[in-house]
């Protein structure tokens, strides 16, 4: 399915969606964080979308906002989409977990939590995955400070 067709279907899900294809081969959808779980559910269950595979889930630090980027694919209908969600609270960023929609998200969300400190509601067990359990801070954030190993530019 073409990006324009995807956009016209997804546009019906909610009023607050922003679409863009700039600098990307995929259709980018920015979703308000309150609607993330609902929209993701519809992306999977809609019979003409069928996004059944989350092939990449990435944490992101835009400097001011933190966020998560979901790359989704339909293995049956062979189309892809990028869903972005942002959260502006750097102290206590919380998003809804999508592990009940795509189970692979369980580990991806652990990684995002590990490096960006974004917490996920209803995640089965949020914990440090790659770093040690007593690690202080979230190293892939732009404002992470490590005086021993990193040079401040």
């Amino acid at each position, binding site marked *: 399915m073409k990006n324009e067709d995807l956009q016209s279907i997804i546009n019906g899900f909610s009023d607050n969606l922003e679409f863009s294809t700039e600098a990307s081969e995929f259709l980018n959808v920015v979703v308000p964080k309150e609607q993330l779980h609902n929209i993701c559910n519809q992306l999977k269950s809609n019979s003409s979308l069928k996004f059944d595979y989350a092939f990449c889930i990435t944490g992101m630090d835009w400097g001011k906002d933190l966020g998560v980027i979901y790359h989704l694919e339909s293995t049956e209908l062979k189309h892809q989409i990028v869903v972005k969600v942002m959260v502006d609270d750097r102290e206590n960023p919380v998003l809804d977990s999508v592990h009940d929609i795509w189970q692979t998200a369980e580990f991806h969300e652990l990684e995002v939590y590990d490096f960006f400190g974004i917490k996920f509601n209803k995640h089965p067990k949020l914990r440090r995955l790659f770093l040690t359990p007593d690690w202080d801070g979230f*190293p892939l954030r732009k404002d*992470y400070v*490590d005086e021993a*190993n*990193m*040079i401040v*530019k």
Partner: protein
Amino acid sequence: MGVEKKRFLNQLEAEGLKQVVPDDFPGKVIPGGNGGNIVVTTLDSVINWGRSNSLWPLYFGTSCCAIEMMQTGAPKHDFSRFGFEVARPSARQADLIIIAGTIVNKMGPVLRRLYDQMAEPKYVIAMGACAISGGPFYYNSYSVIKGADHVIPVDVYVPGCPPRPEALLEGMIMLQQKIKTENMKHKVNPIDGFDEGKV
């Protein structure tokens, strides 16, 4: 019956044949008469000669330099020609470790353990920018060790990103030259005092 005639060098030369002693053998072979020969050398030079020409490297590829290291062992460049023979997957069977790649904080203790498991005398080559200084990509990171010489003592540094096989071969031959200068009487173990900051 008896010993084969051609074993004795002085007789070989008398018959106009060539010496079978390798050119780089560290010592002299003197005809002793009656078919015998006398070898004159020092223990140091003959031991170093043997050691430097049968180094067995350990596979330790942590990133892209490993591909270049494999290429150095493959037929085109073939480090066996210089006595590096077979690369070993076990530290117990190796006496040279070629650090081919980035060392991260999690890998540091593993590298140190492998080094400790190797039998002495043991040698280390740091291959590529990551193993020398943390590398051109990840140097400003919370996770990367800024050079393998923070973990174990390094004998030879081979710069490059990654170095070509010729460069690694050059480094390996330099290591052989270093081994040939060793002295049993004044042998220094490079790990002694390393943790206290001695270079």
